Structure formats: C-alpha cells, structure tokens
C-alpha cells in the first residue's frame, strides 16, 4: 500500500524528457578500452616496465612499534647485482602525508618517506634495488636491522590519552586546524551542534540509542600497487604509476624530495581497480629514490601480502547514534558520536570521520537539533585511508540501525518512518552548510532527489509487505527482509577541480585530453560521450587521452565521487566553448555572423542554405589550406563545483539466516538509485552492483584481523576472502529517472553510493528475523550465533 501523505513529485520536467533524445549520452556504449583489456594487451603499469629497470624491494618492520637502532647493508651490498640499499638517512627529513588530497591537505603531515621509527608491522624500513627480482628479494633479507622494540597500542578504544604516545617526534604538524593532538594520540577531532540536542532529546517522548562497530576493510583491487620510474632526456624524473591522483602524487613527491615540481612527470596507464586504495603514495617514493640514486629505471610491484599489510584499509569506527522522536515517528533530534581508528598515520583521518556525519545526517533534515562529534585516534596498526564510502558507510550503518530501532519501538513500518523524515527535492539541510570535508561546508538546495521513487520501486522489486517481513523456510531457517536508504556526494565543492582540453584534428575528429583518472570505472568513455554529444559527433570521433601531468590539463583525481560531475562538467564546458569557436571560425570564412551558422550532422551551413562545409573539410582548411588564417582550434575549460549534489539509493534486502549455524546469506539485494542522468547506464549500473557486493562483503565476511603482537593475520586472499560469484544470490540495480540541473546533461555521481547500505540493511533484516540487533561487524556465523544465544539467555 502506498502512503499518499507524501505525494511523489513528477519527473523533472522537459529537461529530463530531453535526455531521451540524446545521441551518445545516456546510451550503453562499450568502454573505449574494453576489448583491448579483455584481450590482455599490455596496459597496466607492470606490463610497461622498461627492460633494463632495477627491481625494488622494501625491507619492512616485523614489529608493531619500534625504534631503528641501526641498519647494516654490508651483506646485501656484497651480493653481485645489488645496486643500492637506501634508508631514512638517505633522504631529507620532511614530514608529509601520503594522502592524495587538495592543497593544503586536511591530513596531518605526520609521516616521513622513511623514518627511524616504525609504527606498524609492514612499515617501510629500507629500500633495496637489484638487477633481478629474486636478487632484490634475497638482498632485502640480508639487510641487518637492529630494533628497540616499543610497546604498541593496538586497541583503538584505549588509544586516547594512552601513556604510550605513537607520534612523540618533533616536526610533525597539521596544515590548518584539524584538532591534531599527537601527544594524546589524536590525529583529528571535530564537533558541531545545530540546536540543543540534549534539550531536544530530553523533551522527546521516544528515544533510542544504538552503537555499531564497523571493522577495517581491505580494498583488494586485483592489480597490486605498482610504479616504475626513469630519468627522461631532459633529466626529469618520470613516474608511471597506478595512482588515482597524478597531480597530488607529483606535489607530495616534490615536497618529500624538496624537488621543484617542474622536474617531475606522473603518468597513469590503465589501473586494475582502486576504490580509494590508490589515492595515496605507497610505491612512487621508493622507485623515485632508486632512480635518483642510480640514474637507472626502477620498478616496484607490491606483493599481495604487502598490499594487505602495508597499504591502507577502511577506517574502523565506533558509531553511537541517539534519536529523539514524537510518538507519531517525527524525528526531533539526532546525536552521532564517532570514534575512528586511523592506524599509524593520519591519512584521511579528519575527512572520513566528518563524512560519517556530513553525508548521512542531511538524510533526515526535519530535526530540530543535530550534533556530531568525536575523535580520530592513532594505533599501531596499518594506516586507514580513502575507501569507497569514505566514512559515509560507517555513519550510515549507525544511523540506519537506529532508525530501524525507532521503527520497532513505535511499531511502524521502517519505510514509512523514513518517508516521514527524509529529505525531499527542493529542500535543504543546515548540515550541508556547516560540515564539509575538513572545512566548513557549502549551503545547497537539493534540486534532484528521487528517494520517493527509489523507495516505491524498491518495495515493488523486493515485494515489501510490512506485516510479513519474516517467514520460516525450514526448521530454524528464516527468510527476512530489511531496508536502508543512503546518500553520497558528487565531488568536494569549491575544492575539487577538473579540466579538459578538446582540439580539432585533420580528418574532422577531436582529441580530448583530461586530467581525470580512469580506474577502470569507464571515465575515459563517459567523458568522451559527453564531448561527442555536445560536439554533435559520433563516439569514434573523440580520441581520449587522460592522466598525464605533462600532457593533460589539471584534475585533482578520481575520488569523492567526483569524475562524472566535476571532470564531466569540465568536458561539457570545453565542448561548448569549442563549438562556439568552430562556428565563429566558419562564420568568418563564410563572411557571415556566427548567429547565421547552423551546425548539424557534422556540417556547417549558412542559415539561408547557400553555403555549407563539412567538419572534415573545415579541419583541413584550418590546418592546411587557409594561409595566414590557419590555426589550431581548441578549447580548455575547468570546473569546480559550487555544490555537491548527492545521489540517493533505496536498498531492500532479503536474507536467509540459519539460526542453528548462524550463517547469513543474501538471497536478493535490490538497490534503486538516483544518479541523475546516467551518462552510460550500463557502466553506472555495474559500478553500483560492484559497490553493493563490496558492501555485502563488509557486512558478512571481510575482516582485517591481527595477532596480539600486531601482526596481520588476514594478509592474503585465503585468509581475507572477498565475495566470489557463488557467495550471493541475486543483485538487482535499477536507476530512476532524475535530472540534476547543475550536472553535465543532468548527471550526478555513481562511484560510491553502491557500497553504503548493505551493512545497515542486512543488520535490519537480521533484526527483523530474530529480534536481535547485531552491532559487531562482520556478521560471521560465530558472531551471529553468539548474539542469538546471548539474547536467548537474557530472555530466559
């Protein structure tokens, strides 16, 4: 039954209708690089290493916390074929962050490329380079390191004000106030309050409190982090690397090595997945050190174990949510308090933590009071960093659990509780203005929000009936449904910037250069689609080249769900600007005013039809035939969002839970999503499907486990399994009609939103099935069984 208290707004007017007339955009075109990648053509960093490159291996810390007393490379250097062994004494002592973020970074500069302290098992100690990989590995084993072991802090609940200080060293600092207090093991802190939360909670007749603990998670992009470097003919350092942010990488390396940025070039070839995991410098500094020392090309491909132990994870968080409401379900107050574990260094510490609030709290924008706060603490575990969802998934897991608890308390349909309180088109939230990513936010009116449609369609697809959310399929085996809603963003407003350059070539095609970074998502393809649509040409007429600091214009990189919205808007602006220039040039040639030129079907005509010139012929004229009028016609434009329109998602899941074994299976996961205009619906849909599965992995299986001494136990794909093709039932993703006026052809983002809901929706389904609220992730059979048993004991 549809509740008609909240009328579903009509689809967004003529603009939405116009998207149905597009020739290239909103079409399911194959990825431009797809066939080549399937055929295994050399494309990724490790496929392109120069044949004479030195192999680099890293000596890593076996201790969770230690001071290096001495490093003796004598035996390693004695091996024939070993080129060098480099330690912290070989580079300037410059505090940096490894986080690829805007300048100045909201992450503390608390890290040295190499340091005399090591702060987690796997922390880099020394760099070894040799003629072969086997030799480099052997030499790394021969480097003698003497450590003074220190007592580590491993439990993030005990890190704050622990007498053991993880970062006592001088020189480390924040770039602007982020609440950095290293003497208290605090990497960052933040607090905000709108209205008076305590007073509003006290006055609320109905209150709930829920605390969830979400674990660290590994990205497990199938391509390990890889880079190689060489010195070019002009004596410059070139680094080819699997990075999500070439420009940030260049800037951070320049700082670390005190090199002018003009001396560095970063090239990103194809990447085998990122998910945020390649938004940091993990390999680039070490190949660069070897190349600068030896003058030789040098390459480093991490082993899978190194990827697990020494690149970043998702931030583990404890999220406490308190809600106050009226008996009719009207929310009055939300309080979200978070403790986040950043591990050994503070990369993305503040921003992931703030996003836990800033990209969840606006969902329920009708409250009188809302508060968010807490700390991000250091521990002697591998650092946490950027990971798809970026705090929003953690915050949402707490918020959506609390919302369902409130629905249970009030005995109302959780769907209706959300509809009563959620954000609608044309509305805003104070949270947008107050909370940004590391800074103040940006006030924003919501011009596209089809959550109502998403919910209505999701209910249909899953067969939602509030009176019948659970049924028994076999003795002790229950099937149950649960739901959750989510929002994300589209880039970081006023901070993220992308650029595009488009140039007409002889033959009547266009060269599109973008700084944007395709991680496998298909951004090269969708950016070419945007250019082709605006320029009135076919997809084949756009040749795209991306992510090279020497040859493509600036872009902050692929993160924060930014590429379609930010880089896509830059492409659209460049295409518009180029079209104007083309028309002006042809008008001059024809001796008419630009307004008298009609451009259609790749042909310019005068309005009276007397003169016409094909784009192809014009391209030869302007480059070869027109004497002193000859010129290259190109346009370069940039875009920086003044807002970050959220995509929205309504999720409905049906699970099966075996109450005898504790095993939970996902039978069907339905996600209906508002991404605005999908530039390439198939690519958007598949990306969301992938996000859902990664979120299901977090909810049910994936866990980063450590020994008591701080050694990672889950350091390969046997001990840290990711979901396989057989691990889930059906996943259904549908996109609803939506048009975002501020986005390119109505588009918003799709990169992260998919991952946000599974932990909450699955927990809510288990709660509906069993009456037990699981709060400790992931929901392994052992944990589920223990929770069911504990609840039973409590009741008897």
């Amino acid at each position: 039954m549809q509740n008609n208290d909240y009328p579903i707004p009509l689809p967004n007017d003529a603009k939405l209708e116009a998207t149905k007339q597009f020739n290239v955009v909103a079409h399911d075109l194959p990825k431009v690089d797809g066939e080549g990648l399937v055929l295994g053509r050399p494309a990724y960093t490790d496929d392109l290493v120069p044949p004479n490159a030195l192999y680099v291996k890293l000596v890593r810390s076996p201790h969770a916390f230690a001071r290096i007393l001495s490093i003796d490379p004598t035996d390693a250097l004695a091996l024939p074929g070993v080129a060098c062994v480099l330690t912290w004494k070989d580079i300037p002592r410059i505090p940096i962050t490894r986080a690829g973020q805007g300048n100045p970074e909201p992450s503390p500069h608390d890290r040295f490329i190499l340091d005399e302290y090591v702060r987690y098992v796997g922390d880099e100690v020394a760099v070894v380079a040799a003629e072969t990989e086997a030799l480099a590995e052997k030499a790394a084993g021969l480097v003698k390191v003497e450590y003074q072991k220190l007592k580590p802090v491993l439990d993030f609940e005990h890190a704050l004000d622990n007498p053991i200080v993880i970062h006592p060293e001088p020189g480390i600092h924040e770039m602007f106030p982020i609440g950095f207090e290293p003497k208290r093991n605090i990497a960052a802190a933040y607090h905000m309050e709108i209205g008076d939360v305590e007073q509003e909670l006290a006055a609320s007749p109905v209150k709930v409190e829920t605390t969830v603990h979400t674990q660290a998670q590994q990205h497990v992009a199938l391509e390990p982090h890889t880079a190689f470097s060489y010195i070019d003919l002009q004596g410059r350092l070139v680094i080819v690397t699997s990075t999500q942010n070439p420009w940030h990488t260049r800037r951070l390396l320049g700082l670390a090595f005190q090199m002018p940025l003009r001396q560095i070039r970063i090239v990103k070839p194809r990447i085998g997945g990122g998910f945020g995991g390649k938004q940091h410098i993990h390999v680039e500094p070490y190949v660069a050190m070897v190349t600068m020392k030896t003058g030789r090309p040098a390459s480093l491909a991490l082993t899978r174990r190194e990827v697990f132990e020494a690149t970043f994870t998702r931030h583990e968080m404890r999220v406490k949510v308190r809600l106050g409401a009226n008996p009719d379900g009207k929310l009055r107050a939300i309080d979200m308090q978070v403790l986040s574990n950043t591990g050994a260094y503070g990369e993305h510490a503040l921003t992931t933590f703030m996003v836990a609030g800033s990209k969840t709290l606006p969902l329920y924008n009708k409250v009188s009071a809302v508060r968010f706060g807490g700390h991000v603490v250091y521990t002697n575990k591998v650092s946490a960093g950027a990971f798809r969802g970026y705090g929003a998934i953690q915050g949402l897991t707490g918020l959506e659990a609390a919302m369902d608890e409130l629905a249970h308390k009030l005995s109302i349909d959780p769907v209706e509780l959300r509809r009563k309180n959620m954000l609608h088109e044309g509305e805003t939230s104070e949270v947008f203005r107050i909370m940004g990513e590391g800074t103040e936010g940006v006030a924003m009116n919501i011009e596209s929000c089809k959550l109502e449609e998403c919910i209505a369609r999701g209910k249909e697809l899953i067969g939602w009936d509030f009176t019948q959310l659970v049924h028994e399929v076999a003795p002790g085996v229950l099937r149950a449904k649960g739901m959750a809603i989510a929002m994300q963003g589209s880039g970081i407003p006023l901070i993220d910037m992308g650029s595009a350059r488009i140039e007409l070539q002889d033959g009547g095609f266009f060269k599109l250069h973008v700084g944007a970074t395709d991680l496998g998502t298909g951004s090269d393809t969708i950016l070419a689609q945007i250019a082709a649509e605006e320029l009135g040409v076919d997809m084949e007429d756009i040749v795209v080249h991306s992510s090279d600091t020497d040859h493509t214009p600036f872009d902050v990189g692929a993160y924060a769900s930014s590429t379609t919205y930010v880089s896509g808007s830059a492409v659209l602006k460049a295409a518009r600007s180029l079209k104007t220039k083309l028309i002006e040039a042809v008008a001059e040639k024809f001796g008419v005013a630009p307004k008298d030129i009609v451009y259609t079907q790749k042909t310019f005509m005068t309005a009276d039809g007397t003169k016409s010139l094909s784009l192809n012929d014009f391209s030869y004229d302007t480059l070869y035939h027109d004497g002193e009028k000859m010129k290259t016609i190109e346009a370069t434009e940039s875009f920086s969002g003044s807002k970050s329109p959220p995509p929205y998602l309504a999720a409905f899941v049906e699970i099966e839970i075996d109450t005898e074994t504790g095993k939970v299976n996902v039978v069907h996961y339905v996600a209906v999503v508002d991404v605005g205009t999908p530039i390439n619906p198939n690519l958007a849909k598949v990306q969301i499907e992938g996000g859902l599965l990664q979120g299901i992995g977090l909810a049910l299986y994936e866990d980063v486990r450590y020994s008591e001494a701080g050694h990672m136990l889950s350091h390969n794909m046997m001990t840290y399994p990711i979901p396989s093709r057989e691990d889930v039932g059906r996943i259904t993703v549908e996109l609803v009609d939506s048009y975002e006026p501020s986005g390119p052809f109505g588009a918003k983002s799709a990169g992260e939103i998919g991952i946000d809901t599974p932990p909450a929706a699955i927990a809510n389904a288990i709660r509906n099935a069993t009456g037990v609220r699981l709060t400790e992730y992931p929901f392994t059979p052992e944990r589920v069984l223990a929770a069911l048993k504990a609840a039973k004991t409590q009741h008897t």
Partner: protein
Amino acid sequence: MNITLRINGKQESIECLPGEMLTEVLRRAGHFEVKKGCDTGNCGACTVLVDGKPVLSCSYLAVRAEGKEITTIQGLADEAKKFAAFLTAEGADQCGFCAPGFALTVLAMKEEFSSIPDEAQIRHYLAGNLCRCSGYEGQIRAIKKYLEAQHAE
C-alpha cells in the same frame, strides 16, 4: 635452466629458475596478458590453459609445463573478441584486470559443456575467477548472452 613448451602454438625455449611459477616465466617472455593478482592461487587473474584445461599459472611450477601446450587469451584472440563484445556491451569489463583470465575460463567452459550451462553451473565453473569491480551480475548477463549466441550459430 631452460624449458621448452608451446605457447599459443609456437614452440619456445625459455629460461626459468628452479621453483619459479609459470606466471613469472610467461610474463618475462612478454605474455603480459597473464596477470599477477594474488600470488596464492585465489583470484584467477593468472589463468592459462595447459593442454586445453584452465590452470592457475601462479601456482603451477614452470618446469611442469615442459613439453606442454600453453594457451593464453592471446592464443584464442578471435574467440575472445567475440566474448569481449558481449562483456563490454554489458559494461561488465570495468577495470579489466581480471578479464583475460576470466574470459579464458569462459571459453574453456564453453568447450567443456556440450549444452548451454545454467546459471548455477556458470557461477560454479567461474567461482575461481574473482572480480572486485563488477559484482558479477553484469558478467553473468554477458556470459549467458554470449553462450546463447554461440549456441545459435
């Protein structure tokens, strides 16, 4: 030491170290279509056919390949192109890193089944080819359409 084997129909004698796995040897010989994903025989990115059967080359000692017929995706390029068209039409290729090993396993599955396998059989046959990008649904759609089209031919 050297081993002699046929790679994609071409007899080759290539150097290998004792204990070295086939992935390393093939990549050193320029077969970059064989990807290194996990080092532990879990992800399937390194899949090659040995005498027609899919094996994980990262867990297959190179010396065992002596005298054997090795097929990478490049050796079945024409057939792989047909499958690639279906995979890319669904947008399910994503980052593409798992794709050569995955596509090769799909082609091996097609050879092994006399009729079109059902979805459960497809999921089971390909369970060892992991993908972190796609969520598998799009790949399943592509495989089904590809197999149906091939069957109709």
